[in-house]
């Protein structure tokens, strides 16, 4: 009685060679399959990037409105900014809106800014172009003293500080900073504290937006899953007979599985990367056409990290979905008795 040895286990390189050759030979079909992956991933990426871009645009828009209001309010108290001095007293680190407001003041022609910042609340960049002064002389000849930042001024006698000021205006850019009530001083808050009801409405709106975004993401994910699965399933099931033939010629199930693993991984990565770029470009172009380039690109700049994360997520989604969608039917075919796989007619 003769014994039957085990079939040789071929190295992965052989499987990879067969796969690369296969992709090259059926290039047209491969392109169709990859386009399925590209479309799926592009759809998901365009939805995700759209949400990021929309948030960026909205944040940028709010910021601009806020800065504009601060500037208008200050101008209403002091008159035009031409040849005016202002004293800056940071009481905490600046919010985005405050930093932008400071920038606006710095860039206004004829405005000189003086600062007293012993606690170094300002960053080096924010402190640029500001004249440093001591507390005693900070407000000498200024048109307004601006308290900025998220904090509270410590034990200041505003009447004394503002004694030599040109206009005795004390303004704050944060609703949290308490305004002085000294006589002869015009105190003004440049920021606007939202009323309770307004704040609640805003939160409600945000909650609804998050909910809607969540739904859109889930639906787009489903579309992506179905799109990619369909493309990969088709490309594998139409090769059942080929798998059966390979089994007749002595291919191990593991070899068939590995072949399809490599093939689907290559298609998933290539399709995922292409889809990610296509989806991102599509979103950027669509939002640029709607909101204008400046608004979109300044928002885009602030959310590069999130977009990068989403790119990685979508490419991985393309890869994982492709591999799962291809490997499952390939395993089924590889496990089939060759006679059955050969007969299958799909």
């Amino acid at each position, binding site marked *: 009685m003769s014994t039957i040895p085990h079939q040789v286990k071929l190295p992965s390189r052989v499987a990879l060679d067969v796969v690369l050759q296969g992709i090259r030979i059926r290039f047209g079909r491969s392109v169709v399959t990859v386009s399925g992956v590209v479309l799926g991933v592009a759809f998901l990426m365009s939805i995700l990037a759209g949400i990021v871009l929309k948030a960026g645009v909205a944040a940028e828009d709010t910021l601009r409105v806020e800065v504009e209001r601060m500037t208008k309010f200050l101008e209403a108290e002091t008159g035009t900014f031409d040849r005016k001095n202002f004293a800056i007293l940071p009481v905490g680190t600046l919010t985005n809106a405050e930093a932008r407001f400071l920038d606006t003041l710095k860039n206004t022609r004829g405005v000189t800014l003086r600062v007293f910042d012993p606690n170094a609340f300002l960053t080096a960049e924010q402190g640029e172009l500001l004249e440093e002064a001591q507390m005693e002389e900070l407000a000498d000849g200024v048109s307004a003293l601006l308290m900025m930042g998220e904090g509270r001024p410590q034990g200041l006698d505003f009447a004394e500080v503002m004694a030599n000021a040109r206009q005795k205006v004390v303004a704050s850019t944060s609703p949290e900073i308490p305004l002085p009530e000294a006589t002869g001083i015009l105190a003004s808050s440049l920021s606007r504290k939202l009323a309770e009801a307004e704040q609640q409405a805003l939160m409600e709106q945000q909650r609804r937006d998050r909910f809607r975004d969540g739904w859109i993401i889930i639906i787009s994910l489903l579309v992506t899953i179905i799109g990619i699965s369909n493309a990969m399933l088709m490309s594998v099931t139409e090769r059942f007979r*080929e798998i059966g033939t390979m089994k007749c010629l002595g291919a191990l199930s593991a070899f068939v599985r590995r072949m399809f693993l490599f093939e689907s991984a290559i298609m998933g990565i290539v399709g995922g990367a292409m889809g990610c770029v296509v989806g991102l470009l599509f979103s950027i172009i669509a939002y640029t056409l709607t909101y204008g380039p400046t608004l979109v690109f300044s928002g885009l700049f602030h959310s590069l990290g999130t977009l990068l994360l989403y790119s990685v997520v979508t490419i991985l989604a393309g890869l994982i979905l492709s591999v799962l969608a291809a490997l499952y039917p390939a395993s089924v075919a590889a496990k089939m008795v060759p006679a059955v796989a050969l007969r299958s007619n799909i």
Partner: protein
Amino acid sequence: MNSDPATAAINQEEIAGNTVSSDRPLQAGDIDTLFAQPAKEPAETVINAVDVWKIYNPGPNETQALKGATLDVFKNEYLSIMGPSGSGKSTLFNMIGALGKPSRGKVYIDQVDIAQLDHNELAWLRCRKVGYIFQSYHLIQVMTCLENVTLPMAFAGMEAEQARDRGVKILKLVGLGHRVLHKPAELSGGQQQRVAIARALANQPEIVLADEPTANLDQHTGQEMIDLLCSLKEELGVTIISATHDLKMLQRSDRILWIEDGQIVKAARPDDIDFSTSEFDH
């Protein structure tokens, strides 16, 4: 062994690792060079099928393709199987070729019960021991002829370079030396069948299972294929099992089995048969 100077020259080329440069009919020496293997003693059985049943879709609508087929195939025998379509011929082929599992009964290849083999051993068996020639060729359409022929060699672990040389030689042997890099779709049916035959011979199988190998070939090519199969049998001790209606194939075979309704109904030697009778009306 070869006194013919032309053949001797070709053999020298092949030994030196070169490919044969011209297309020509098959010659005896070619097989020796390609399948260097001593001829084996006949008489022992190589395949035994014992009461093999195959039932598709078990249940009320089941189809009984085989109903207790029993047969022995001897080593170095050329066995032809005849039967009308739907008689279970192809199913019997799949069972004795280890391409499917019988519902009942046993199939032994070289005295090994194939039901006891794991997928790994079955793969080895299908790769080295048996060469399959299908009626519808089952060539891989996206691969060239050469790649189709070298695929089983790759599965057997042969180096690509060596497989390539051997593949070219086998393709020349079946008369397709000039179509090595063509895809199956660019070939005629007969040429595709020859690629399928070349592929079946890739790993020097002991058994060649051929399902209507000459059905799609013209008279001349069909005759060449029969010659090729017969010389494989005679020189290398290959066992050939073939389903056919081709009188020429039947006349050249050692034994003929009739299968009807899933059972072997008759066995005969070609010498005992009058080929002009109505038994060949199927």
